[in-house]
């Protein structure tokens, strides 16, 4: 399944950028800031 993940950490370089990721996972984390991504769309 392809997920669209958007990091909402303002200080992060991925802030407000939607990144597609094809995977099946129990949790989603933003690599640069390490915070959990809660804005997940499938």
């Amino acid at each position: 399944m392809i997920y669209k993940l958007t990091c909402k950490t303002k200080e992060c370089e991925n802030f407000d950028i939607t990144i597609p990721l094809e995977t099946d996972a129990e949790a989603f984390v933003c690599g640069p800031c390490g915070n959990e991504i809660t804005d997940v769309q499938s």
Partner: protein
Amino acid sequence: MAGTTTNFGITYPTNTDYVYLGANAIQTVAQGFDTRLGDVTNYPDQIVNKVSGVSRPVPYAMSSNITSASYASSTMATVAVTFPSSRFTVAPNVTASPASNSNVSKQSVAMPYSVSTTGFTANLYYTLGTAVTATVSIYWTAVQMTSASSGG
């Protein structure tokens, strides 16, 4: 033009050179750096670490951090991790390892899979095979050596 820089060997004017030769001097300095850094506009030329005349290419792109995955009364945990936006142009080589010193961490292995240019997923397996509930930290590193290949 009597001086050269210690590390890059870039030629520069000295205080006894003529002012009317200033343009030529600046061009020589600019050309020196241009030659030293290489043809970075055409791949696969990369920035190269050059020491004592020996070239050692450095990775084209890297990313690394620490994350965690949680067992929920299970023997496997998964976490999907996004890379920095536009960091990689090909799927990088990813290594992952349990990072903490807990008993569960010591009996866990981390396996990256579904690696793409945008991220990867890490599977955490509890090798004792019994269901546990715990959170384990994972160190991960992604490397793309050249603009066209993850290895190199």
